[in-house]
């Protein structure tokens, strides 16, 4: 782990700031009353998503392209790290009327 960090720093010094990914951010996506908000979010690879389910119902965040499928128990929060770039439409498998978009930049 330490070695990895050092290597990354060395690499950054060698290749300049442009090669260093921006600090990973954490963004929150809330499911409440059968609505996903925000309905559209921009993120980057490496960012963490906190999926917050405020409903008494179970939900999922299921990517149409198969990139992710997160299951959310009632009143629970689940975190996942975005690993792949792309504009991903996702929905809840239990309530397919819940739909949203995640735009993941490389």
């Amino acid at each position, binding site marked *: 782990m330490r070695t990895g960090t050092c290597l990354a720093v060395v690499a950054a010094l060698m290749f300049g700031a442009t090669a260093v990914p921006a600090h990973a951010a954490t963004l929150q996506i809330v499911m409440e009353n059968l609505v996903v908000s925000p309905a559209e979010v921009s993120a980057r690879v490496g960012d963490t998503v906190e999926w917050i389910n405020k409903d008494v119902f179970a939900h999922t965040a299921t990517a149409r392209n198969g990139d992710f499928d997160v299951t959310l128990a009632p009143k629970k929060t689940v975190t996942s790290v975005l690993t792949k770039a792309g504009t991903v439409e996702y929905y809840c498998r239990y*309530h397919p009327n819940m739909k949203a978009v995640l735009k993941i930049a490389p």
Partner: protein
Amino acid sequence: MFVRLTAAAAALSLLTGAALAQGAKPTDPQIAHIAYTAGVIDITAAKQAISKASNKDVKAFAEDMIRDHEAVNKQALDLVKKLKVTPEDNDTSKTLSKQASDKLAELGKLSGAAYDKAYVANEVAYHKAVNGALETQLIPSASNAELKGLLQTGLKIFQGHQQHAEHVAAELK
């Protein structure tokens, strides 16, 4: 397809017809009873599906129905307790229950893929009918804001179920 649409139309007209026949819009205690009854009906149908269905997606759908409708009904019970409202039986609830027990008996005679298809087709029709009743009758008639809010959440849940059921039905073809 034709049968399914007919069933949906019949259920919807029964729902609205029975309520309208009383000459007045349903009261909150009646609305609470209708909404709760509608949930219980779907839970009962789902329990039958879990024991009878052969397709795994159909079984999973039935489990989703039990989980969601039990959660909605628990909220409904909590709300009527809080509001000190006693749900009141009425013609719409009675019609719904009668129709549901007939449907349960009819589905009970089927098995295998035929059962799976018939159960899911009825789920599409049933949710469509309940959604229609919620939109045109129950939500506009509800006077308590919290009851109205719960019905609106229920409508979104049921619309989700309808789409889910339509998806499962399409997969069965």
